[in-house]
């Protein structure tokens, strides 16, 4: 067993850490306020190859591994949680399934520009009536000659505003329940497709969360990903991997808050000494650091299993469950260390606290993770 990054993994981590410190951190508060990730950030991420970390080079990716990818998401999230989820949702929820289930033509046409970051992707499953219970989605797809016709409304779609390629889930046969779900690649200019309202959120405010409307939306039949009826399995594949990304994002948020807390504790003087001298503060910092390290090891192990082609869904569920909880606890304690300052916008910890909450919800709530984990360990 070797707990060590390879040279490339370390170089990637160091580069993204620096990028986060120099480019993201100074802008994160402003992007949070304005509710957008600035275009120059997209461009920079694309130029650096961060939209296709583990996509093979022949498809326009960097040809690295899943561990590098997860590390990228952590380090980006440490600078700006919205930027972290931008890359994570793009990669885990669209790029990965096209890489896995796509035809050669689909890879050339869609994977290539996505891996290069020329286009942004969004994953569209959730509907007003279907959250965790994905099988109850109401969006339908009907075959019409060489096309499918999509009808329905998706909401809470991450990257919804910026994306130009969407992976949309719809029922091709409602009767067959989960075996009647299919996945489609929809381009932004497809007739009958439009973007609805944007959500105002508690956290990750720079990341767009949009409603997508499909009104007799016509897409070519060759945009079906995998086979008809395979949609549910593709979705599960997405979330198994996506949890690694969300876990890494949660660790990044926690790490950022923890670093703020340490810095504040060392410089804030009360009763004539830095508050870091007080055991009450020291214990908080020690607990924070320990939790973060444990959460990081979990997501790294899940990423490693995925890279090795071994079963990883149990680990990715555990990683997400634990890391999101750690993010909540650490950001809460980081504010506590800051006292009243932590409650103001002057200090970034209030943003970290707001950003952390979503990690317990999207790509499977903590409750859903526990169910997954429990079912796995009780079966057979």
């Amino acid at each position, binding site marked *: 067993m070797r707990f060590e990054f390879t*040279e*490339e993994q370390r*170089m*990637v981590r*160091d*580069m993204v850490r*620096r*990028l986060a410190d120099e480019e993201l951190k100074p802008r994160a508060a402003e992007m949070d306020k304005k509710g957008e990730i600035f275009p120059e950030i997209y461009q*920079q991420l694309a*130029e*650096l*190859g*961060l939209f296709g*970390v583990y996509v093979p*080079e022949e498809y326009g990716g*960097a*040809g*690295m591994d899943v561990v*590098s990818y997860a590390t990228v998401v952590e380090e980006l999230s440490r600078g700006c949680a919205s930027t972290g989820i931008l890359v994570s949702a793009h990669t885990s929820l669209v790029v990965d399934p096209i890489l896995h289930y796509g035809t050669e033509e689909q890879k050339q046409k869609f994977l290539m520009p996505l891996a290069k970051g020329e286009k942004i992707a969004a994953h569209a499953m959730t509907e007003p009536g279907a959250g965790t219970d994905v099988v109850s989605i109401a969006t339908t797809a009907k075959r019409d000659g060489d096309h499918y016709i999509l009808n329905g409304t998706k909401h809470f779609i991450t990257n919804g505003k910026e994306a130009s390629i969407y992976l949309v889930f719809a029922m091709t046969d409602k009767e067959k329940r989960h075996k009647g779900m299919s996945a489609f690649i929809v381009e932004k200019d497809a007739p009958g497709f439009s973007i609805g309202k944007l959500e105002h959120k508690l956290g990750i405010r720079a990341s767009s969360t949009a409603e997508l409307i499909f009104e007799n939306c016509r897409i070519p039949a060759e945009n079906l990903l995998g086979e008809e009826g395979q949609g549910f399995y593709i979705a599960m594949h997405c979330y198994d991997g996506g949890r690694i990304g969300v876990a890494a994002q949660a660790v990044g948020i926690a790490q950022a808050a923890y670093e703020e807390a340490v810095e504040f504790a060392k410089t804030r003087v009360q009763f004539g000494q830095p508050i870091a001298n007080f055991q009450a503060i020291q214990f908080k910092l020690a607990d924070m650091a320990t939790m973060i390290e444990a959460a990081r090891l979990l997501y790294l192990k899940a990423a490693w299993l995925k890279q090795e082609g071994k079963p990883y869904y149990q680990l990715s569920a555990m990683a997400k469950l634990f890391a999101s909880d750690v993010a909540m606890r650490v950001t809460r304690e980081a504010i506590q260390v800051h006292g009243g300052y932590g409650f103001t916008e002057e200090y970034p910890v209030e943003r970290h606290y707001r950003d952390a909450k979503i990690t317990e919800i999207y790509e499977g709530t903590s409750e859903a993770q526990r169910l997954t984990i429990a079912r796995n360990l009780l079966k057979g």
Partner: protein
Amino acid sequence: MKVVVFCKSVPDTETRVRLKDNRLDKSEIKYILNPYDEFAVEEAVRMKEAGKVDEVVAVSMGPERAREALRSALAIGADRAILIKDDALDGSDTYVTAKVLVKALEKDGVEYGMLLFGQQAIDGDTWHVPGQVAEMLGLPQAGSIIKLEVDPDAGKAVANRLVEGGEEVHEMALPCVVTCRKGLNEPRYPSLPNIMKAKRKPVQDYSLADLGLSPEEVGRAGSFTEVLSYSLPPKKEAGRKVEGEPEEVVQELVKFLKDEIKVL
């Protein structure tokens, strides 16, 4: 034209410095490519991208960890690298370092049009090696440049040195030596595809014997200077910190300036 960029592996500025027996305790230090060398690598790679240079060679002298600094240079865009590594080199002063670098250039046989250095390394901060190499090779040199224009066909370079009160513009015949500093360019972040490519680029290792040097000529034995000891700088006593109405604190500050340190 080919150019050579010299790269040093140095402790990160954020690193906490610990001393053990009056020597630096290097066990917990994180090492990076010297930030000034990044300006040099970036400039060389830009010259290549502009079609003025066809090969960028990165050279480092140091222990095994210097390979990482070279890898960083390759990820920015250098084409190949040379690592001069030998236990006997430990403790070499700048004169010896320059001598060894010159030997490595000879050994490699690269027909360079320019040698690029960082103005200084952030650990030693000597600024010595470039000038020493330039003198040993009998080359013109422009130190601390913030602008560089190279014309390989005409065999000359024009460089602006940032000096007190302005800029000295030097015209030099090629080959020449330049040292790079902030203001010359903005070093890029190495992209993931380039990090992967760097892995496949060649790194040539040279030992002392490869360069035809003996252990007595290098390291502490061959050096003209030696570090007698390291010490932590005297801790400054914490000063006064005043808070309150601006009018009052300014009165106190003026008193300090006038009566205590007598600058008014």
